[in-house]
């Protein structure tokens, strides 16, 4: 794994590196969709759902607890957990939380939920008879699917 230089924003390849590592954890046993909650648990984190509306989620890296605001829409929780997993990935890369950029963290979260390789394959394989990208990624917030599409230059 690469190491982020302190006080500088990570390069895109470093983001992919973090994302790939956590993705491996999240897609164990050949699962085709990442299970971010399992990945967090595999790292030793407790996932606790707390009905506090101040934040969608936050991570206590010392206590190894990830708090997630419960939501009736499972996509909200998936996104929150992926975002928190992205924070954990950055910590593992040596970037302390005070240097985490929320926009980059979102980018990493999208890489975890929609890895570039499979995303490109799905988009390229789409034809008139194939389900849309939103259908393929129905477990992800559609806004994030759109953001990933733009991010990857489609």
């Amino acid at each position: 794994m690469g190491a982020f230089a302190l006080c500088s924003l990570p390069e895109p390849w470093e983001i992919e590196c973090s994302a790939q590592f956590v993705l491996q954890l999240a897609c164990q046993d050949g699962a085709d969709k990442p299970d971010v909650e399992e990945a967090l648990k595999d790292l030793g984190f407790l996932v606790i759902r707390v009905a506090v509306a101040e934040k969608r989620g936050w991570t206590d890296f010392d206590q190894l607890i990830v708090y997630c605001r419960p939501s009736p829409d499972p996509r909200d929780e998936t996104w929150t957990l992926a975002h928190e997993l992205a924070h954990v990935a950055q910590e593992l890369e040596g970037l302390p939380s005070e240097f985490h950029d929320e926009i980059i963290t979102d980018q990493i979260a999208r890489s975890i939920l929609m890895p570039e390789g499979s995303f490109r394959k799905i988009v390229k394989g789409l034809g008139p008879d194939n389900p849309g990208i939103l259908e393929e990624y129905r477990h992800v917030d559609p806004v994030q699917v759109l953001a990933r599409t733009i991010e990857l230059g489609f």
Partner: protein
Amino acid sequence: MSRMPTLKELVGPLLDSLETEAKAKGQKWSVRALELKHGIANGTLGQIAKGQRTTLNPDTTHKIALALGLSEAELNRAQRTSDDLDDAPDSGPERTPPAASTEIVREGYLAVLDEAFDGETHKPSDFVAVERLLRSRAAQILPGVDGPQIVRRWLDAAARIRERGENASSSAIIRELTARVVELEEANRRPVHPLVKQAQEKRRAREDR
């Protein structure tokens, strides 16, 4: 901004301290007995402590003042604070309803609190503490989430803190909840990934420098 306590904030903790005091002396104590002793209508003190009643007539004010060892002036001031919080700024003799959105949220969580409140386990001050937490931390009972079940855990946490003789502040309740959840889930906790341990050590070393 600091303000005077409302009727609920004044009466709830007092009822608790009276009970604690009586228990410490080995005496039997109940809110009902206190009401009977001072000729206060059944349930009045409980309603005040839950915030369901924010105004009192002069006779009841006099009786409650005697029962709780307060001055009537203190109770009247608390009633005015309750009114100030509940009323629109220019309310006259006719009460103007508060802004709808605030009231819906407030009524929503008060209803959930009411449902979760168990008179046998919880005391009025637990209700007040959790209500304060809901209000001050902008916490909401979210749609689709079992509100009463969650709030009941918060009330239980406030009760445990009270039983330890500590102040059930909002942060104390959150600490208690976290500690409890961690304790409950400890058994299912998986081993910590070596990379996480490594990152934690690096972090601590950085903080020590």
